């Protein structure tokens, strides 16, 4: 199965706060094919979660999509009335949130919440939905699923809750699964369990996945394609090998070398990215990364670089590439 499932075109999202317009997402475009895993990396405030929430029309007040188009399975998401959107959420697009402690309802049993999702979106009877729920819990590796269905979220550990959350999300077999930092709140050994689970399920359910994280290790483990975001823009986009082995953008290069690796020996000082992330209220005219970039040119301070093609399917937004190209051409 291939073909385009999701297309985002020039998406802008802003939050209108008393301090001014916070431009969280500034014109991002990408497409996602059926069954592919797309990773979005970036630091806090880079707009990675906001752009995913926009897919579900879940931008909280005072935020608003100011420009752009989202097409999912040939339907226009942004213009969709709320009733239709409700049918889409959970059924066609599933979402796993970062914090399994707060994304489950504490006063309903896990079973109740699973059954609710299924009855809302399919024409199953309650008994059928219950059975399907038990099946789903088994699928995500929860023992004694019948008994677990009758328990409340507080009776589950963090990893179990995240498993239950995944079961719930997958129960309607969505075409697209958005996982927003699915393991950030978990310990490493539990994180390993969840990542293995997602890997395993990926083949079984054939959903496309958007995985949002700040951990490049997780990306390298799971994804086919990667988008690197900085200050609400895509700075680099490519296949996983492009991003890790043919890294083009200075920010991505910085990210890759600024943390110590488990498998490296040297104790030399790390090479940090100097400075701090930009203020989204007052974005500079030029490249947002310019103030922290060691290869910054005069041009970078004045003009915003667009995504430029490096290779087939590999693009990067940096003026250096334009200069390189010119030199090669000349």
């Amino acid at each position: 199965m291939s073909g385009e499932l999701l297309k985002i075109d020039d998406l802008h999202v802003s939050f209108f706060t008393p301090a001014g317009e916070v431009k969280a997402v500034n014109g991002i475009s990408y497409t996602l094919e059926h069954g592919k895993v797309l990773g979005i990396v970036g630091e806090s405030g880079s707009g990675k979660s906001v752009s995913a929430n926009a897919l579900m029309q879940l931008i909280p007040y005072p935020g608003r999509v100011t420009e752009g188009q989202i097409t999912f399975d040939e339907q226009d998401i942004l213009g969709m009335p709320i009733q239709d959107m409700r049918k889409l959420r959970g059924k066609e697009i599933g979402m796993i949130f970062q914090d399994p402690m707060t994304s489950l309802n504490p006063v309903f049993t896990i079973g109740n919440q699973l059954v609710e999702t299924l009855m809302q979106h399919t024409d199953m009877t309650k008994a059928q939905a219950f059975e399907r729920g038990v099946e789903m819990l088994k699928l995500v590796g929860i023992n004694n699923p019948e008994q677990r269905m009758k328990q409340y979220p507080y009776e589950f550990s963090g990893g179990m809750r995240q498993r239950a959350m995944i079961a719930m999300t997958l129960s309607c077999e969505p075409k697209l699964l958005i996982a927003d930092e699915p393991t950030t709140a978990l310990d490493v050994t539990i994180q390993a369990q969840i990542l293995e689970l997602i890997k395993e399920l990926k083949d079984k359910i054939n959903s496309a996945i958007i995985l949002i994280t700040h951990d490049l290790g997780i990306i390298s483990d799971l994804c086919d394609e990667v988008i690197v975001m900085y200050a609400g823009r895509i700075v680099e986009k490519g296949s996983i090998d492009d991003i890790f082995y043919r890294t083009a953008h200075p920010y991505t290069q910085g990210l890759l070398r600024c943390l110590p690796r488990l498998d490296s020996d040297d104790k030399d000082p790390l090479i940090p990215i100097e400075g701090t992330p930009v203020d989204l209220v007052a974005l500079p005219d030029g490249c947002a990364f310019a103030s922290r970039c060691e290869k910054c040119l005069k041009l970078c301070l004045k003009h915003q670089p667009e995504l430029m093609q490096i290779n087939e399917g590999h693009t990067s937004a940096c003026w250096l590439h334009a200069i390189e190209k010119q030199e090669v051409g000349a």
Partner: protein
Amino acid sequence: MSKTLLEIKNLKKYFEVSGGFMKKPKYVQAVDDVSFQIEQGETLGIVGESGCGKSTIGRTMLRLYEPTSGQIIFDGEDITTGNMTPYRKRMQIIFQDPYASLDPRMTVGDIVGEPLDIHKISSGHADRNERILSLLNLVGLNSEHMNRYPHEFSGGQRQRISIARSMALQPDFMVCDEPISALDVSIQAQVINMLMELQQKMGLTYLFIAHDLSVVRHISNRVGVMYLGSMMELTRSESLYKNPLHPYTQALLSAIPIPDPNISRARHRIVLEGDVPSPINPPKGCKFHTRCPYAKDVCLEQRPAMAEIEPGHFCACHKVSEDW
């Protein structure tokens, strides 16, 4: 090598959780019989998952928590009981969350100057200001930051302020309790470099607590791995990563994702089953036996003692010490 700066012997810290009126109280065994030494000038890293007692150890060593039993020896003196005031100057701590550990109503100058006031270090206003300024310079901030409030700073800058405050008394020993986990990836490296630089300049000794093994490996000379309040393995950092002995350490290392697609595709991950048991009622025998792929009968019955397997490499595991 050099002399031992700090030593803990059989340290225990139990927290009472109320069982209710007239009921027998229960205890969370946060730190359960842990012993180790830290040498002058070295960095000892402590890693483990949440709830393993790594932060409790750090705080108990500074007597921010009173130990339930055991001994703490700092620079040859027993500091388990008695007045801590003279030692506070020499032992400091950096906390994890730079948003919660700075008083929002104090200016940065006052935050950094407070230790000086309490210990009556400075001689007069001008001297105090000068000291504060040199501390701020030390961590890469400057005089214009002195009269601002914490909310005006980013996470990384706040952690710098917090480090400046703990450096104010020129301590010998510093507990770094997850100092970088609340920070963004690109900022983490800045803070790690600064901590390592300060150590070189000032001859500091660190206890570096973190759950991120790659960072701990980078900064530490020796690393201890904790699980459910007990030390499982303790050795030099290179040998922990090259030759992990304890099954828990092996699983922990293999659980860390490495940012390199070829390596991730090739490597086989040891996935531990289940969750960490409750520290109120830890398993009998070896605490890890409920999740250990090698567990035998002896593990269910008998708690393995810390044994020196190779010179300087300690491990508490029946499998390793009896060589199954």
